[in-house]
Protein backbone atom coordinates (compact mmCIF):
# COMPACT_ATOMS: atom_id res chain seq x y z
CA UNK A 1 0.00 0.00 0.00
CA UNK A 2 1.53 3.27 -1.07
CA UNK A 3 1.31 6.29 1.07
CA UNK A 4 2.04 9.93 0.52
CA UNK A 5 2.39 12.87 2.80
CA UNK A 6 -0.47 15.29 2.97
CA UNK A 7 -0.54 18.64 4.60
CA UNK A 8 -3.86 20.02 5.74
CA UNK A 9 -5.10 22.72 8.03
CA UNK A 10 -5.54 21.74 11.63
CA UNK A 11 -9.04 21.28 12.84
CA UNK A 12 -8.79 24.06 15.29
CA UNK A 13 -7.63 26.47 12.63
CA UNK A 14 -10.63 25.78 10.48
CA UNK A 15 -12.97 26.04 13.43
CA UNK A 16 -11.56 29.36 14.49
CA UNK A 17 -11.77 30.89 11.06
CA UNK A 18 -15.09 32.63 11.37
CA UNK A 19 -17.11 34.49 13.90
CA UNK A 20 -18.15 31.37 15.80
CA UNK A 21 -14.66 31.30 17.26
CA UNK A 22 -16.05 33.69 19.80
CA UNK A 23 -18.11 30.88 21.26
CA UNK A 24 -15.21 28.79 22.38
CA UNK A 25 -12.41 29.63 24.77
CA UNK A 26 -10.15 27.13 23.11
CA UNK A 27 -10.50 28.71 19.73
CA UNK A 28 -10.08 32.20 21.02
CA UNK A 29 -6.95 31.07 22.81
CA UNK A 30 -5.68 29.52 19.60
CA UNK A 31 -6.09 32.83 17.83
CA UNK A 32 -5.01 35.15 20.59
CA UNK A 33 -2.20 33.04 21.92
CA UNK A 34 0.45 33.73 19.33
CA UNK A 35 -0.28 37.42 19.58
CA UNK A 36 -0.80 37.95 23.26
CA UNK A 37 1.85 35.58 24.53
CA UNK A 38 4.90 37.21 22.95
CA UNK A 39 3.57 40.63 23.81
CA UNK A 40 3.10 39.57 27.42
CA UNK A 41 6.58 38.07 27.51
CA UNK A 42 8.11 41.26 26.20
CA UNK A 43 6.22 43.37 28.66
CA UNK A 44 6.94 41.22 31.70
CA UNK A 45 10.50 40.14 30.97
CA UNK A 46 12.20 43.42 31.89
CA UNK A 47 10.95 43.03 35.43
CA UNK A 48 12.90 39.83 35.86
CA UNK A 49 16.11 40.67 34.12
CA UNK A 50 19.28 42.21 35.40
CA UNK A 51 20.59 45.45 33.98
CA UNK A 52 22.84 43.75 31.43
CA UNK A 53 20.05 41.71 29.90
CA UNK A 54 17.73 44.68 29.98
CA UNK A 55 20.22 46.42 27.75
CA UNK A 56 20.16 43.39 25.48
CA UNK A 57 16.37 43.61 25.31
CA UNK A 58 16.78 47.24 24.36
CA UNK A 59 19.10 46.25 21.58
CA UNK A 60 16.68 43.58 20.44
CA UNK A 61 13.88 46.11 20.24
CA UNK A 62 15.98 48.65 18.35
CA UNK A 63 17.22 46.16 15.81
CA UNK A 64 13.77 44.68 15.51
CA UNK A 65 12.47 48.14 14.63
CA UNK A 66 15.14 48.48 11.96
CA UNK A 67 14.40 44.99 10.67
CA UNK A 68 10.64 45.56 10.53
CA UNK A 69 11.05 48.85 8.73
CA UNK A 70 13.37 47.13 6.24
CA UNK A 71 10.81 44.41 5.78
CA UNK A 72 8.06 46.92 5.06
CA UNK A 73 10.15 48.50 2.33
CA UNK A 74 10.89 45.06 0.93
CA UNK A 75 7.20 44.29 0.80
CA UNK A 76 6.71 47.48 -1.19
CA UNK A 77 9.37 46.49 -3.64
CA UNK A 78 12.27 48.53 -2.35
CA UNK A 79 15.33 46.72 -1.06
CA UNK A 80 17.33 48.98 1.19
CA UNK A 81 20.96 48.22 1.85
CA UNK A 82 21.24 51.24 4.08
CA UNK A 83 18.98 51.11 7.12
CA UNK A 84 21.97 52.77 8.74
CA UNK A 85 21.01 55.89 6.81
CA UNK A 86 17.64 56.11 8.59
CA UNK A 87 19.18 55.18 11.92
CA UNK A 88 22.04 57.62 11.60
CA UNK A 89 19.86 60.45 10.34
CA UNK A 90 17.54 60.12 13.33
CA UNK A 91 20.51 59.82 15.65
CA UNK A 92 22.17 62.96 14.36
CA UNK A 93 19.00 65.05 14.22
CA UNK A 94 18.11 64.28 17.80
CA UNK A 95 21.74 64.65 18.85
CA UNK A 96 22.05 68.03 17.18
CA UNK A 97 18.74 69.25 18.57
CA UNK A 98 19.82 68.25 22.05
CA UNK A 99 23.43 69.41 21.86
CA UNK A 100 23.06 72.74 20.10
CA UNK A 101 19.54 73.70 21.11
CA UNK A 102 19.21 72.01 24.43
CA UNK A 103 15.86 70.43 23.67
CA UNK A 104 14.90 67.60 26.01
CA UNK A 105 14.56 64.00 24.83
CA UNK A 106 10.78 63.93 24.87
CA UNK A 107 10.91 66.65 22.19
CA UNK A 108 14.01 65.63 20.26
CA UNK A 109 12.98 62.02 19.78
CA UNK A 110 9.60 62.66 18.14
CA UNK A 111 11.07 65.56 16.17
CA UNK A 112 13.98 63.45 14.99
CA UNK A 113 11.58 60.70 14.00
CA UNK A 114 9.57 63.00 11.77
CA UNK A 115 12.43 65.15 10.52
CA UNK A 116 14.82 62.26 10.03
CA UNK A 117 12.17 60.39 8.10
CA UNK A 118 11.47 63.43 5.94
CA UNK A 119 15.16 64.05 5.19
CA UNK A 120 15.80 60.44 4.21
CA UNK A 121 12.73 60.43 1.99
CA UNK A 122 13.79 63.62 0.23
CA UNK A 123 17.30 62.34 -0.36
CA UNK A 124 16.00 59.10 -1.84
CA UNK A 125 13.22 60.65 -3.93
CA UNK A 126 15.24 60.79 -7.17
CA UNK A 127 15.84 57.07 -7.07
CA UNK A 128 12.25 56.04 -6.56
CA UNK A 129 11.57 56.34 -10.24
CA UNK A 130 14.32 53.98 -11.20
CA UNK A 131 14.81 50.27 -11.25
CA UNK A 132 14.95 48.70 -7.81
CA UNK A 133 18.62 47.96 -8.13
CA UNK A 134 19.44 51.68 -8.20
CA UNK A 135 17.56 52.17 -4.96
CA UNK A 136 19.62 49.43 -3.35
CA UNK A 137 22.85 50.83 -4.67
CA UNK A 138 22.16 54.36 -3.56
CA UNK A 139 21.03 53.30 -0.07
CA UNK A 140 24.27 51.39 0.20
CA UNK A 141 26.46 54.27 -0.92
CA UNK A 142 24.93 57.16 0.98
CA UNK A 143 25.75 56.11 4.58
CA UNK A 144 29.28 55.17 3.54
CA UNK A 145 29.68 58.54 1.90
CA UNK A 146 28.14 60.44 4.78
CA UNK A 147 30.71 58.89 7.10
CA UNK A 148 33.51 60.17 4.91
CA UNK A 149 31.89 63.57 4.59
CA UNK A 150 31.54 63.93 8.35
CA UNK A 151 35.10 62.78 8.81
CA UNK A 152 36.36 65.29 6.28
CA UNK A 153 34.26 68.35 7.03
CA UNK A 154 34.29 67.76 10.75
CA UNK A 155 30.71 69.00 11.12
CA UNK A 156 28.62 67.95 14.09
CA UNK A 157 31.64 66.97 16.03
CA UNK A 158 33.47 65.23 13.18
CA UNK A 159 35.26 62.08 14.17
CA UNK A 160 34.73 62.65 17.88
CA UNK A 161 31.02 63.14 17.52
CA UNK A 162 28.80 64.88 20.00
CA UNK A 163 28.65 63.67 23.55
CA UNK A 164 26.98 64.58 26.75
CA UNK A 165 23.40 64.23 25.58
CA UNK A 166 20.59 64.31 28.06
CA UNK A 167 19.93 60.76 29.13
CA UNK A 168 16.51 59.21 29.35
CA UNK A 169 15.11 58.37 32.80
CA UNK A 170 17.15 55.31 33.50
CA UNK A 171 16.28 51.73 34.07
CA UNK A 172 12.89 50.28 33.31
CA UNK A 173 11.45 53.39 31.70
CA UNK A 174 13.85 53.26 28.77
CA UNK A 175 13.23 49.58 28.21
CA UNK A 176 9.47 49.95 28.38
CA UNK A 177 9.50 52.96 26.09
CA UNK A 178 11.30 51.16 23.31
CA UNK A 179 9.50 47.87 23.90
CA UNK A 180 6.20 49.70 23.73
CA UNK A 181 7.15 51.29 20.42
CA UNK A 182 8.42 47.95 19.16
CA UNK A 183 5.15 46.20 19.93
CA UNK A 184 3.12 49.05 18.49
CA UNK A 185 5.12 48.97 15.27
CA UNK A 186 4.97 45.16 15.09
CA UNK A 187 1.22 44.96 15.38
CA UNK A 188 0.64 48.18 13.51
CA UNK A 189 2.70 47.27 10.47
CA UNK A 190 1.28 43.78 10.34
CA UNK A 191 -2.20 45.21 10.41
CA UNK A 192 -1.35 47.87 7.83
CA UNK A 193 0.07 45.42 5.36
CA UNK A 194 -3.09 43.35 5.59
CA UNK A 195 -5.39 46.19 4.69
CA UNK A 196 -6.16 47.22 1.14
CA UNK A 197 -3.49 49.91 1.46
CA UNK A 198 -0.93 47.21 2.15
CA UNK A 199 -2.27 45.27 -0.80
CA UNK A 200 -1.53 48.24 -3.04
CA UNK A 201 2.03 48.38 -1.72
CA UNK A 202 2.55 44.68 -2.30
CA UNK A 203 1.01 45.11 -5.72
CA UNK A 204 3.62 47.71 -6.52
CA UNK A 205 6.24 45.15 -5.67
CA UNK A 206 4.68 42.38 -7.74
CA UNK A 207 3.48 44.22 -10.82
CA UNK A 208 3.85 47.94 -10.73
CA UNK A 209 2.61 48.40 -14.28
CA UNK A 210 -0.67 46.86 -13.32
CA UNK A 211 -1.00 49.16 -10.33
CA UNK A 212 -0.23 52.19 -12.48
CA UNK A 213 -2.84 50.98 -14.90
CA UNK A 214 -5.34 51.14 -12.09
CA UNK A 215 -4.82 54.87 -11.92
CA UNK A 216 -2.72 54.80 -8.79
CA UNK A 217 0.34 56.99 -8.53
CA UNK A 218 2.89 54.41 -7.51
CA UNK A 219 5.57 56.99 -6.75
CA UNK A 220 3.36 58.67 -4.20
CA UNK A 221 2.71 55.34 -2.50
CA UNK A 222 6.38 54.44 -2.56
CA UNK A 223 7.18 57.79 -1.04
CA UNK A 224 4.71 57.14 1.74
CA UNK A 225 6.14 53.69 2.43
CA UNK A 226 9.63 55.16 2.41
CA UNK A 227 8.63 57.84 4.87
CA UNK A 228 7.01 55.41 7.29
CA UNK A 229 9.98 53.11 7.12
CA UNK A 230 12.60 55.80 7.49
CA UNK A 231 10.71 57.42 10.34
CA UNK A 232 10.75 54.13 12.24
CA UNK A 233 14.46 53.80 11.60
CA UNK A 234 15.00 57.41 12.63
CA UNK A 235 13.16 56.78 15.88
CA UNK A 236 15.52 53.90 16.63
CA UNK A 237 18.49 56.15 16.00
CA UNK A 238 17.13 59.06 18.00
CA UNK A 239 16.36 56.73 20.89
CA UNK A 240 19.85 55.26 20.92
CA UNK A 241 21.44 58.68 20.91
CA UNK A 242 19.86 59.35 24.24
CA UNK A 243 20.71 55.92 25.58
CA UNK A 244 24.38 56.24 24.75
CA UNK A 245 24.31 59.98 25.31
CA UNK A 246 26.53 60.17 22.24
CA UNK A 247 26.24 60.43 18.50
CA UNK A 248 29.08 60.09 16.02
CA UNK A 249 30.15 58.46 12.79
CA UNK A 250 29.53 54.92 14.07
CA UNK A 251 25.78 55.46 13.72
CA UNK A 252 26.19 54.98 9.98
CA UNK A 253 28.07 51.74 10.45
CA UNK A 254 27.31 48.78 8.24
CA UNK A 255 26.14 46.79 11.26
CA UNK A 256 22.96 48.83 11.34
CA UNK A 257 22.33 48.04 7.71
CA UNK A 258 23.24 44.37 7.68
CA UNK A 259 21.84 42.97 10.89
CA UNK A 260 18.28 44.12 10.12
CA UNK A 261 18.46 42.42 6.74
CA UNK A 262 19.91 39.28 8.28
CA UNK A 263 17.16 39.31 10.91
CA UNK A 264 14.44 39.71 8.29
CA UNK A 265 15.89 37.02 6.05
CA UNK A 266 16.32 34.55 8.89
CA UNK A 267 12.88 35.25 10.28
CA UNK A 268 11.20 35.44 6.93
CA UNK A 269 10.89 38.34 4.52
CA UNK A 270 7.41 39.60 3.89
CA UNK A 271 5.92 38.94 7.28
CA UNK A 272 6.66 41.74 9.69
CA UNK A 273 6.70 39.23 12.52
CA UNK A 274 9.49 37.34 10.80
CA UNK A 275 11.74 40.37 11.00
CA UNK A 276 10.99 40.72 14.70
CA UNK A 277 11.61 37.03 15.26
CA UNK A 278 14.92 37.25 13.44
CA UNK A 279 16.00 40.14 15.62
CA UNK A 280 14.99 38.27 18.77
CA UNK A 281 17.20 35.39 17.66
CA UNK A 282 20.18 37.17 16.20
CA UNK A 283 20.74 40.03 18.62
CA UNK A 284 21.20 37.90 21.79
CA UNK A 285 23.25 35.49 19.69
CA UNK A 286 25.53 38.28 18.61
CA UNK A 287 25.75 39.50 22.21
CA UNK A 288 26.79 36.05 23.35
CA UNK A 289 29.43 36.03 20.65
CA UNK A 290 30.73 39.44 21.63
CA UNK A 291 34.08 37.85 22.19
CA UNK A 292 34.75 37.44 18.53
CA UNK A 293 34.37 41.13 17.95
CA UNK A 294 34.63 42.12 14.32
CA UNK A 295 33.76 38.66 13.13
CA UNK A 296 30.17 39.16 14.19
CA UNK A 297 29.38 41.05 11.05
CA UNK A 298 30.90 38.17 9.11
CA UNK A 299 28.47 35.93 10.92
CA UNK A 300 25.52 38.10 9.88
CA UNK A 301 26.74 38.02 6.32
CA UNK A 302 27.08 34.27 6.26
CA UNK A 303 23.72 33.73 7.92
CA UNK A 304 22.24 35.96 5.25
CA UNK A 305 23.70 34.06 2.35
CA UNK A 306 22.86 30.66 3.78
CA UNK A 307 19.29 31.58 4.54
CA UNK A 308 18.69 33.36 1.27
CA UNK A 309 19.86 30.39 -0.70
CA UNK A 310 18.63 27.52 1.46
CA UNK A 311 15.69 28.69 3.58
CA UNK A 312 14.18 31.53 1.59
CA UNK A 313 10.85 31.64 3.40
CA UNK A 314 12.43 32.08 6.78
CA UNK A 315 11.74 30.67 10.19
CA UNK A 316 8.50 32.46 10.90
CA UNK A 317 6.88 30.86 7.92
CA UNK A 318 7.97 27.45 9.18
CA UNK A 319 6.58 28.11 12.64
CA UNK A 320 3.35 29.48 11.28
CA UNK A 321 2.90 26.47 9.09
CA UNK A 322 3.47 24.07 11.92
CA UNK A 323 0.98 25.97 14.03
CA UNK A 324 -1.75 26.08 11.44
CA UNK A 325 -1.26 22.87 9.57
CA UNK A 326 -0.43 19.28 10.22
CA UNK A 327 1.06 16.57 8.09
CA UNK A 328 -0.04 13.02 7.88
CA UNK A 329 0.35 9.99 5.71
CA UNK A 330 -2.53 9.06 3.47
CA UNK A 331 -3.01 6.18 1.14
CA UNK A 332 -2.68 6.81 -2.51
CA UNK A 333 -5.85 5.54 -4.08
CA UNK A 334 -5.52 4.39 -7.64
Amino acid at each position, binding site marked *: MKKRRERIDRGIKVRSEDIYALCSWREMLYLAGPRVLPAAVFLLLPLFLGVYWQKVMLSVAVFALLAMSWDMLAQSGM*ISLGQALFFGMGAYVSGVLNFYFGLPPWITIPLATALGGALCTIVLLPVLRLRGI*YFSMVTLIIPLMLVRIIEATKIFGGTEGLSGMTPLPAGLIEVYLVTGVFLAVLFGLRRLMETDYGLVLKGIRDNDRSVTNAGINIYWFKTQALFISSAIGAFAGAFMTHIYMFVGMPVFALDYSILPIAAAVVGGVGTTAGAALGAVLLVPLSEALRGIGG*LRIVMYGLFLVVFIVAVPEGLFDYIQRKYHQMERWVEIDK
Partner: protein
Amino acid sequence: MFAGTLVFALINSFILILLALGFNLTFGISGVANFAYGALYVMSAYMSWAMMRLLSLPFWASAAVSIAITMIAGALMYRFVLLRVRGQALSEVIATFSIGLAILEVFRYLGLVGFEYTLPVFSGESFMIAGAYVDMQRIAVVLIGLMLVLGLWLFTHFTPLGLAFRGIAQDERTALTFGIDSDRLGVLSVSFGAGLAAVAATIIIPLGSIAPDEGYDVLIKALAVCIIGGLGSTGGVIVAGFIIGFAERFTDTYIGSHWTMIVSLAAILLVLAIKPSGLFGRQKELEERI
Protein backbone atom coordinates in the same frame (compact mmCIF):
# COMPACT_ATOMS: atom_id res chain seq x y z
CA MET B 1 49.61 74.23 -10.19
CA PHE B 2 46.96 74.03 -12.84
CA ALA B 3 49.00 71.87 -15.18
CA GLY B 4 49.98 69.58 -12.37
CA THR B 5 46.38 69.21 -11.28
CA LEU B 6 45.46 68.44 -14.86
CA VAL B 7 47.99 65.65 -15.05
CA PHE B 8 46.89 64.09 -11.80
CA ALA B 9 43.26 64.49 -12.78
CA LEU B 10 43.98 62.47 -15.88
CA ILE B 11 45.64 59.78 -13.82
CA ASN B 12 42.83 59.79 -11.29
CA SER B 13 40.32 59.36 -14.09
CA PHE B 14 42.12 56.29 -15.34
CA ILE B 15 42.25 54.84 -11.88
CA LEU B 16 38.50 55.21 -11.62
CA ILE B 17 37.97 53.78 -15.08
CA LEU B 18 40.16 50.77 -14.27
CA LEU B 19 38.19 50.22 -11.09
CA ALA B 20 34.86 50.41 -12.80
CA LEU B 21 35.59 48.26 -15.85
CA GLY B 22 35.07 44.93 -14.14
CA PHE B 23 31.89 45.98 -12.40
CA ASN B 24 30.54 47.45 -15.60
CA LEU B 25 31.27 44.27 -17.49
CA THR B 26 29.42 42.11 -15.02
CA PHE B 27 26.46 44.30 -14.26
CA GLY B 28 26.05 46.36 -17.34
CA ILE B 29 26.72 43.65 -19.81
CA SER B 30 25.37 40.59 -18.08
CA GLY B 31 22.94 42.12 -15.66
CA VAL B 32 24.48 40.55 -12.59
CA ALA B 33 25.10 42.95 -9.74
CA ASN B 34 28.27 41.77 -8.10
CA PHE B 35 28.48 43.62 -4.83
CA ALA B 36 31.38 41.50 -3.74
CA TYR B 37 33.45 43.37 -6.31
CA GLY B 38 35.36 45.48 -3.83
CA ALA B 39 36.04 42.44 -1.67
CA LEU B 40 37.43 40.50 -4.61
CA TYR B 41 39.68 43.46 -5.41
CA VAL B 42 41.13 43.48 -1.91
CA MET B 43 41.27 39.71 -1.70
CA SER B 44 43.36 39.44 -4.85
CA ALA B 45 45.79 42.02 -3.49
CA TYR B 46 46.20 40.16 -0.21
CA MET B 47 46.73 36.94 -2.10
CA SER B 48 49.50 38.43 -4.24
CA TRP B 49 51.10 39.84 -1.13
CA ALA B 50 50.88 36.51 0.68
CA MET B 51 52.36 34.61 -2.22
CA MET B 52 55.26 37.02 -2.48
CA ARG B 53 55.95 37.08 1.23
CA LEU B 54 55.26 33.53 2.20
CA LEU B 55 56.05 31.60 -0.96
CA SER B 56 58.69 33.98 -2.24
CA LEU B 57 57.17 34.02 -5.67
CA PRO B 58 58.16 36.84 -8.00
CA PHE B 59 55.63 39.62 -8.35
CA TRP B 60 54.44 38.81 -11.84
CA ALA B 61 53.85 35.18 -10.90
CA SER B 62 51.97 36.07 -7.74
CA ALA B 63 49.87 38.53 -9.64
CA ALA B 64 49.06 36.03 -12.36
CA VAL B 65 48.11 33.34 -9.88
CA SER B 66 45.99 35.66 -7.78
CA ILE B 67 44.19 36.98 -10.83
CA ALA B 68 43.43 33.41 -11.80
CA ILE B 69 42.23 32.49 -8.33
CA THR B 70 40.05 35.58 -8.16
CA MET B 71 38.46 34.63 -11.46
CA ILE B 72 37.77 31.17 -10.13
CA ALA B 73 36.31 32.67 -6.96
CA GLY B 74 33.99 34.77 -9.08
CA ALA B 75 32.93 31.76 -11.09
CA LEU B 76 32.26 29.72 -7.95
CA MET B 77 30.28 32.53 -6.45
CA TYR B 78 28.04 32.58 -9.47
CA ARG B 79 27.73 28.84 -9.68
CA PHE B 80 26.84 28.22 -6.07
CA VAL B 81 25.12 31.35 -4.94
CA LEU B 82 24.00 33.62 -7.74
CA LEU B 83 22.63 30.83 -9.88
CA ARG B 84 20.14 30.01 -7.18
CA VAL B 85 18.89 33.52 -6.78
CA ARG B 86 19.19 34.66 -10.37
CA GLY B 87 16.56 37.12 -11.42
CA GLN B 88 15.51 38.19 -7.98
CA ALA B 89 17.35 41.45 -7.72
CA LEU B 90 16.88 41.51 -3.97
CA SER B 91 18.61 38.26 -3.36
CA GLU B 92 21.41 38.84 -5.87
CA VAL B 93 22.45 42.08 -4.28
CA ILE B 94 22.11 40.85 -0.72
CA ALA B 95 23.89 37.59 -1.38
CA THR B 96 26.86 39.10 -3.16
CA PHE B 97 27.09 41.97 -0.74
CA SER B 98 27.08 39.61 2.24
CA ILE B 99 29.82 37.52 0.74
CA GLY B 100 31.88 40.61 0.06
CA LEU B 101 31.20 41.85 3.55
CA ALA B 102 32.23 38.54 5.09
CA ILE B 103 35.48 38.54 3.15
CA LEU B 104 36.40 42.10 4.03
CA GLU B 105 35.52 41.83 7.69
CA VAL B 106 37.54 38.65 8.04
CA PHE B 107 40.54 40.56 6.71
CA ARG B 108 39.81 43.37 9.12
CA TYR B 109 39.58 40.91 11.98
CA LEU B 110 42.92 39.40 11.05
CA GLY B 111 44.37 42.86 11.40
CA LEU B 112 46.17 42.93 8.10
CA VAL B 113 46.53 46.66 8.07
CA GLY B 114 49.70 48.61 7.78
CA PHE B 115 52.31 49.95 5.39
CA GLU B 116 54.00 46.63 4.94
CA TYR B 117 50.89 45.35 3.22
CA THR B 118 51.44 46.60 -0.24
CA LEU B 119 52.46 45.47 -3.68
CA PRO B 120 55.59 46.52 -5.47
CA VAL B 121 55.66 49.11 -8.21
CA PHE B 122 56.85 48.24 -11.68
CA SER B 123 59.67 50.68 -11.62
CA GLY B 124 60.88 53.29 -9.23
CA GLU B 125 61.49 55.93 -11.83
CA SER B 126 59.54 59.07 -12.14
CA PHE B 127 59.22 61.71 -14.79
CA MET B 128 58.70 65.39 -14.76
CA ILE B 129 55.50 66.21 -16.60
CA ALA B 130 54.17 69.73 -16.70
CA GLY B 131 56.03 70.74 -13.61
CA ALA B 132 55.00 67.80 -11.46
CA TYR B 133 56.78 64.57 -10.66
CA VAL B 134 54.82 61.66 -12.01
CA ASP B 135 55.98 58.20 -11.04
CA MET B 136 56.17 55.32 -13.44
CA GLN B 137 53.43 53.44 -11.71
CA ARG B 138 50.94 56.14 -12.37
CA ILE B 139 51.92 56.25 -15.99
CA ALA B 140 51.50 52.50 -16.10
CA VAL B 141 47.98 53.00 -14.76
CA VAL B 142 47.13 55.22 -17.69
CA LEU B 143 48.75 52.97 -20.27
CA ILE B 144 47.29 49.76 -18.99
CA GLY B 145 43.95 51.47 -18.57
CA LEU B 146 43.97 52.47 -22.21
CA MET B 147 44.93 48.97 -23.27
CA LEU B 148 42.23 47.36 -21.22
CA VAL B 149 39.53 49.70 -22.44
CA LEU B 150 40.55 49.11 -26.03
CA GLY B 151 40.84 45.38 -25.45
CA LEU B 152 37.44 45.24 -23.82
CA TRP B 153 35.86 47.18 -26.64
CA LEU B 154 37.37 44.87 -29.23
CA PHE B 155 36.32 41.88 -27.18
CA THR B 156 32.69 42.89 -26.84
CA HIS B 157 32.36 43.98 -30.43
CA PHE B 158 34.31 41.41 -32.35
CA THR B 159 34.63 38.16 -30.53
CA PRO B 160 31.77 35.65 -30.34
CA LEU B 161 31.96 35.52 -26.57
CA GLY B 162 31.94 39.28 -26.22
CA LEU B 163 29.00 39.60 -28.56
CA ALA B 164 27.20 36.92 -26.62
CA PHE B 165 27.73 38.94 -23.47
CA ARG B 166 26.05 41.94 -25.06
CA GLY B 167 23.28 39.77 -26.39
CA ILE B 168 22.44 38.54 -22.94
CA ALA B 169 22.40 42.08 -21.65
CA GLN B 170 20.07 43.36 -24.34
CA ASP B 171 17.52 40.59 -24.38
CA GLU B 172 18.13 37.39 -22.52
CA ARG B 173 15.23 35.46 -24.01
CA THR B 174 16.23 36.16 -27.57
CA ALA B 175 19.81 35.33 -26.81
CA LEU B 176 18.68 32.00 -25.41
CA THR B 177 16.88 31.23 -28.63
CA PHE B 178 20.17 31.78 -30.40
CA GLY B 179 21.66 29.01 -28.37
CA ILE B 180 23.54 31.28 -26.03
CA ASP B 181 23.64 29.66 -22.63
CA SER B 182 22.92 32.45 -20.20
CA ASP B 183 24.04 30.46 -17.19
CA ARG B 184 27.41 29.67 -18.64
CA LEU B 185 27.77 33.28 -19.69
CA GLY B 186 26.79 34.40 -16.24
CA VAL B 187 29.64 32.39 -14.79
CA LEU B 188 32.02 33.84 -17.34
CA SER B 189 30.91 37.42 -16.90
CA VAL B 190 31.25 37.38 -13.11
CA SER B 191 34.54 35.61 -13.54
CA PHE B 192 35.88 38.14 -16.05
CA GLY B 193 34.63 41.02 -13.96
CA ALA B 194 36.44 39.60 -10.95
CA GLY B 195 39.54 39.14 -13.06
CA LEU B 196 39.44 42.78 -14.11
CA ALA B 197 39.12 43.76 -10.48
CA ALA B 198 42.22 41.72 -9.72
CA VAL B 199 44.13 43.31 -12.59
CA ALA B 200 43.12 46.75 -11.39
CA ALA B 201 44.29 45.84 -7.90
CA THR B 202 47.65 44.68 -9.19
CA ILE B 203 48.29 48.06 -10.77
CA ILE B 204 46.63 50.45 -8.35
CA ILE B 205 47.48 48.99 -4.96
CA PRO B 206 51.18 49.78 -5.36
CA LEU B 207 50.21 53.45 -5.18
CA GLY B 208 49.18 52.95 -1.58
CA SER B 209 48.59 50.00 0.67
CA ILE B 210 46.06 47.23 1.05
CA ALA B 211 43.32 47.77 3.60
CA PRO B 212 39.88 46.21 4.06
CA ASP B 213 38.23 49.62 3.81
CA GLU B 214 39.58 49.85 0.29
CA GLY B 215 37.03 47.21 -0.57
CA TYR B 216 34.12 49.46 0.29
CA ASP B 217 35.73 52.46 -1.34
CA VAL B 218 36.31 50.55 -4.54
CA LEU B 219 32.72 49.37 -4.61
CA ILE B 220 31.44 52.89 -4.06
CA LYS B 221 33.67 54.34 -6.74
CA ALA B 222 32.87 51.63 -9.26
CA LEU B 223 29.17 52.09 -8.59
CA ALA B 224 29.46 55.84 -8.88
CA VAL B 225 31.24 55.68 -12.21
CA CYS B 226 28.87 53.10 -13.61
CA ILE B 227 25.75 54.89 -12.44
CA ILE B 228 26.85 58.25 -13.83
CA GLY B 229 28.21 56.81 -17.04
CA GLY B 230 25.28 54.51 -17.57
CA LEU B 231 25.37 50.83 -16.81
CA GLY B 232 26.51 48.76 -19.72
CA SER B 233 28.22 51.46 -21.64
CA THR B 234 32.00 51.30 -21.79
CA GLY B 235 31.99 54.74 -23.33
CA GLY B 236 29.95 55.93 -20.39
CA VAL B 237 32.48 54.50 -17.97
CA ILE B 238 35.22 56.43 -19.68
CA VAL B 239 33.34 59.71 -19.74
CA ALA B 240 32.10 59.31 -16.18
CA GLY B 241 35.58 58.31 -15.07
CA PHE B 242 36.90 61.53 -16.49
CA ILE B 243 34.13 63.65 -15.05
CA ILE B 244 34.49 62.29 -11.55
CA GLY B 245 38.27 62.04 -11.83
CA PHE B 246 38.64 65.65 -12.83
CA ALA B 247 35.99 66.87 -10.41
CA GLU B 248 37.68 65.11 -7.53
CA ARG B 249 41.16 66.30 -8.38
CA PHE B 250 40.22 69.91 -8.99
CA THR B 251 38.07 70.02 -5.89
CA ASP B 252 40.97 68.61 -3.96
CA THR B 253 43.39 71.24 -5.19
CA TYR B 254 41.24 74.32 -5.26
CA ILE B 255 38.52 73.83 -2.70
CA GLY B 256 39.70 71.37 -0.14
CA SER B 257 40.28 67.67 0.08
CA HIS B 258 37.31 66.95 2.27
CA TRP B 259 34.89 68.15 -0.34
CA THR B 260 35.81 65.53 -2.92
CA MET B 261 33.46 62.89 -1.57
CA ILE B 262 30.62 65.39 -1.44
CA VAL B 263 31.21 66.24 -5.07
CA SER B 264 30.96 62.60 -6.06
CA LEU B 265 27.82 62.05 -4.02
CA ALA B 266 26.21 65.18 -5.40
CA ALA B 267 27.14 64.13 -8.92
CA ILE B 268 25.45 60.76 -8.47
CA LEU B 269 22.26 62.23 -7.09
CA LEU B 270 22.20 64.88 -9.79
CA VAL B 271 22.60 62.39 -12.60
CA LEU B 272 19.97 60.10 -11.12
CA ALA B 273 17.55 62.96 -10.85
CA ILE B 274 18.06 64.34 -14.32
CA LYS B 275 19.11 61.53 -16.58
CA PRO B 276 18.69 58.33 -14.64
CA SER B 277 19.97 55.97 -17.26
CA GLY B 278 23.29 57.69 -16.91
CA LEU B 279 24.97 59.85 -19.50
CA PHE B 280 25.36 57.09 -22.02
CA GLY B 281 22.97 54.57 -20.66
CA ARG B 282 21.40 52.18 -23.09
CA GLN B 283 18.41 51.32 -20.97
CA LYS B 284 15.26 52.28 -22.72
CA GLU B 285 12.57 54.13 -20.84
CA LEU B 286 10.26 51.22 -20.29
CA GLU B 287 12.71 48.93 -18.60
CA GLU B 288 14.56 51.60 -16.80
CA ARG B 289 11.68 53.10 -14.97
CA ILE B 290 11.27 51.21 -11.73
